[in-house]
């Protein structure tokens, strides 16, 4: 989230789209109700189903699954066409005036530079025009047809209300009502927040859906302000933290990135990640990259990381390509993988096409499952009849299952969706011989290190030199680890201004501003620096006072970065440094420094007259409508159909190559098992219920009782066409498998008219499986297609095709 849960209460308009917060984040959703009560806020819900969030909405607009870009593109067109934008904001704080390369073009569904063979783009034209001074050229009058504003206006002029209705099935009046309500926040004194979740991410163009949402917010001047922002309601309790800590194929802690295959030169590796400002007087904060990187390498490799060996640059693996989970399972399926670890993760249930996943796991030599619970993945080799029809004798994988603790049995911190690091305390011992994850990792690591010490082997250096300074090497304690990722001085640190020592060697640092690139500081995750300072554990703070009444509670826990609660908050003040909305002011210039109700997201002493832009992490200094070369499928979000489309055409173009996302990666074999509307005529989508948490609560008796029976939801129209009544057993098939469930016939899902034809949705809740205390059921990912978003490779769980038939059997 750019903002945070309590801040939702500051909104005047709330858009819930690509999520169903009332059901999936019910306690966070209280703050939407708070906004309605406090500010008479209007709640807009856009969803294929009339959800629990919709039931308390002021405006509900139905939409066909997978068409969010068409809808949001229509909103962008409306705002630009009706000139409902916050002019001062977009002019000063975005790339509106930047001039774009003459070669950049968009034609019949494709951007310039497409290579059909590679399913990707040569992106060299997706860039700005630079002047002789090295800076990007701009046209502040916005008259130049090659400025971002003009290009964007032209691009989205095609997204008319008629086109939105044709693609999305959203009735025109409902769409225009939504636009009008959103547009009411283009004034400086009103804020809209966007709340989304996996309903936006789990599409083959999910990242671009989110970009489109962010573009709407920028046009309205809603980024960086109280009650505004683009807010991902993250699913798991520490999915934010694990992402912050970089536990992904291509990342290092704090959104730093691994070097690529061709990045053999250390200086060039750093330079690419520390871009010079693209406009005069801009900060481009990533110029500090090397300080964060060297401090990380000192935290991990200690004395083995020296200036002479480029801070152990060769210890880092170089990335040949992204090894995301879909690719890894593809490799596993091809027999290219030997071993796999699943720590608190149940991939057999969590990735698409269960049949392929199970077959892939069966090709491993060893699988190690670390979990508090008995997961389906750990028993993929066991026969559970129709739910998992395998022959154990034929599966040669050795499977280890190691019991870990749960939240109640450990100290530690989690990062909530609003970036707060909150400390929690242990209340009991774990059952049996269960151990904490850190102790289990230590157990494996110490054995491995021992073997490399004694026997040698392939490049043992990073393993042998990994710092392991923990009091009990077999069980690194949370407080020691937290101190390590916060960072400390390795030598006495002197202030360059006056030469005074402000931190002695061994002392904890106050923030990443103190990090150095000369090896005199260590820090395991620069954005977490400040969490455990010399003054102690800031994450354990429990003062919930709220002196300004805006819900920022700066002394409750600790938020990254530097305890800042609203990101980009410089944009809440006008170019002269005065709050746009004095009622909900965030930060302001007091004549000599920036101050406010939140920690300023800005250079503290930068005089507004110097013209530094508020988006200090971007080398432009401003926010980007035009994404340059950073996205796989284009600088502007464009509508493409889901890979399984119920209409079989893309009404935005006539180009067969631009039916679906032209830059999405599809493996051979997966393309062949996509279904078509002829055999599978119904649009399907997956979601979960408020009583359930993915596959965990199958193991929790009270939740298994509250919502026991596997079901699917269909509308009354479809039910009568197929002769299905509530309570009938039905079989739902995709081109990859089937599930059986009880039908719930509902008024909540209505047929939509799309491109002149009727489209029905089938709603498929996830939860059931073959282990647990709940009634057994089918893993719903039996049905879903093996394709991901072109940038993140997040699977397209929200839009696919199925057929449905009534079964004679009764439950």
């Amino acid at each position: 989230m750019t903002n945070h849960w309590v801040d939702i209460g500051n909104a005047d308009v709330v858009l819930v789209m690509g999520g169903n917060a009332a059901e999936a984040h019910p306690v966070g959703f209280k703050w939407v109700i708070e906004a309605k009560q406090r500010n008479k806020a209007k709640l807009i819900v856009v969803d294929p189903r009339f959800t629990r969030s919709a039931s308390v909405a002021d405006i509900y607009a139905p939409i066909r699954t997978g068409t969010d870009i068409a809808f949001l593109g229509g909103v962008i067109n409306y705002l630009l066409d009706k000139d409902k934008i916050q002019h001062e904001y977009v002019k000063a704080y975005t790339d509106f005036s930047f001039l774009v390369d003459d070669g950049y073009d968009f034609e019949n569904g494709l951007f310039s530079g497409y290579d059909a063979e590679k399913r990707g783009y040569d992106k060299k034209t997706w860039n700005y025009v630079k002047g002789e001074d090295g800076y990007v050229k701009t046209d502040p009058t916005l008259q130049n047809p090659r400025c971002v504003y003009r290009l964007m206006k032209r691009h989205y002029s095609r997204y008319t209300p008629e086109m939105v209705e044709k693609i999305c099935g959203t009735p025109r009046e409902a769409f225009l009502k939504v636009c009008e309500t959103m547009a009411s926040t283009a004034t400086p004194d009103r804020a809209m927040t966007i709340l989304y979740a996996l309903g936006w991410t789990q599409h083959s163009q999910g990242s671009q859906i989110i970009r489109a949402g962010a573009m709407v917010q920028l046009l309205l001047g809603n980024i960086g302000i109280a009650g505004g922002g683009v807010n991902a309601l993250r699913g798991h309790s520490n999915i934010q933290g694990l992402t912050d800590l970089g536990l992904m194929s291509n990342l290092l802690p704090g959104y730093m990135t691994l070097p690529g295959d061709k990045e053999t030169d250390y200086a060039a590796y750093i330079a690419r990640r520390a871009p010079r400002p693209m406009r005069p007087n801009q900060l481009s904060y990533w110029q500090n990259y090397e300080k964060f990187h060297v401090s990380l390498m000192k935290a991990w490799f200690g004395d083995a990381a020296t200036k002479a060996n480029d801070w152990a640059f060769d210890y880092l693996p170089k990335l040949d390509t992204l090894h995301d989970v879909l690719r890894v399972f593809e490799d596993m399926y091809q027999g290219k993988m030997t071993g796999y670890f699943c720590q608190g993760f149940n991939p057999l249930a969590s990735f698409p096409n269960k049949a392929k996943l199970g077959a892939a796991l069966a090709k491993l030599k060893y699988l190690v499952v670390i979990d508090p619970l008995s997961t389906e993945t750990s028993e993929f080799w066991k026969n559970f009849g129709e739910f998992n029809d395998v022959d154990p004798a034929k599966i040669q994988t050795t499977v280890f299952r190691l019991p870990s603790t749960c939240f109640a049995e450990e100290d530690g911190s989690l990062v909530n969706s609003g970036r707060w690091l909150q400390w929690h305390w242990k209340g009991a011992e774990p059952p049996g011989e269960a151990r904490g994850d850190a102790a289990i990792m230590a157990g494996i690591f110490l054995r491995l290190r021992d073997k490399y010490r004694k026997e040698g082997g392939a490049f043992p250096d990073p393993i042998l030199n990994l710092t392991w300074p923990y009091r009990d090497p077999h069980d690194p304690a949370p407080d020691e680890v937290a101190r390590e990722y916060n960072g400390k001085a390795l030598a006495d640190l002197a202030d360059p201004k006056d030469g005074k020592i402000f931190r002695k060697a061994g002392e904890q640092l106050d923030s990443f501003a103190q990090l150095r690139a000369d090896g005199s500081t260590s820090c395991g995750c620069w954005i977490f620096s400040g969490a455990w300072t010399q003054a102690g554990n800031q994450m354990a703070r429990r003062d919930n006072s709220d002196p300004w009444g805006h819900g920022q509670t700066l002394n409750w826990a600790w938020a990254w970065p530097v305890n800042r609660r609203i990101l980009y908050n410089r944009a809440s003040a006008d170019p002269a440094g005065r709050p746009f909305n004095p009622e909900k002011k965030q930060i302001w210039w007091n004549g000599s420094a920036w101050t406010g109700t939140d920690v300023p997201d800005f250079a503290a002493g930068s005089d507004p007259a110097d013209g530094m832009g508020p988006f200090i992490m971007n080398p432009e200094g401003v926010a980007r409508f035009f994404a340059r070369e950073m996205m796989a499928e284009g600088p502007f979000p464009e509508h493409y159909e889901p890979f399984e489309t119920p209409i079989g055409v893309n009404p935005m173009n006539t180009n067969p190559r631009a039916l679906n996302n032209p830059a999405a990666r599809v493996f051979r074999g997966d393309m062949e098992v996509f279904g078509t509307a002829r055999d599978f005529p119904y649009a399907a989508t997956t979601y979960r219920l408020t009583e359930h948490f993915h596959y965990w609560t199958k193991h929790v008796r009270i939740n298994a009782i509250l919502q026991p029976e596997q079901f699917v939801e269909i509308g009354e129209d479809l039910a009568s066409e197929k002769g299905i009544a509530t309570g009938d057993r039905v079989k739902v098939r995709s081109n990859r498998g089937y599930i059986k469930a009880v039908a719930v016939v509902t008024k909540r899902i209505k047929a939509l008219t799309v491109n002149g034809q009727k489209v029905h949705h089938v709603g498929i809740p996830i939860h059931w499986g073959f282990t647990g205390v709940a009634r057994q059921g089918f893993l719903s990912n039996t049905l879903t297609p093996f394709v991901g978003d072109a940038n993140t490779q997040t699977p397209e769980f929200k839009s696919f095709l199925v057929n449905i038939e009534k079964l004679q059997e009764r439950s």
Partner: protein
Amino acid sequence: MKVTRRQFFRISTAGLGGSSIALMGFSPAEALAEARTFKLERATETRNTCPYCSVACGLLMYSSGDTSKNVRAGIMHIEGDPDHPVNRGSLCPKGAGLLDFVHSPNRLQYPEVREPGANAWKRISWEEAFERVAALMKEDRDANFIARNAEGATVNRWLSTGFLAASAASNESGYITHKVVRSTGMIAFDNQARV
């Protein structure tokens, strides 16, 4: 209906109906005032946060025992933390059922192994588990580690073993996991954020 204080507690703690019985007017006034004390007065209170979604509601966990060395604490009640600025004491149907998660009959107790072709688990010791897992890792890493790519550049990666990390694990567990995994050169590494 007249109930004594003790009878009222029996009714209230018998099930989910406790609060509605009170609402229906069956409660003696003095009992209402002391209900919480009776249930939890001898418990140890520990602050935690909900492990499910990222609203991260504050929790109060109550465990039996007085935390002395020879007493094994057992959690007997979990409720929302009224001081917490986000949830202000409330919990959803998942958070309110956390006690059944902590005490799920499916909590794993011991390290186990399923041997190739076998149809059942076998209990093993932690020592055996660590030894065997480390041996399998080393065998694969030594056989398949890629020190240089086709162009001869140093790449030092290990692609044939992968790791999925837990997005409900603490930052501290996650950090240690990352440190260990990267030191081996693994790249097939993700967490639930990929989904």
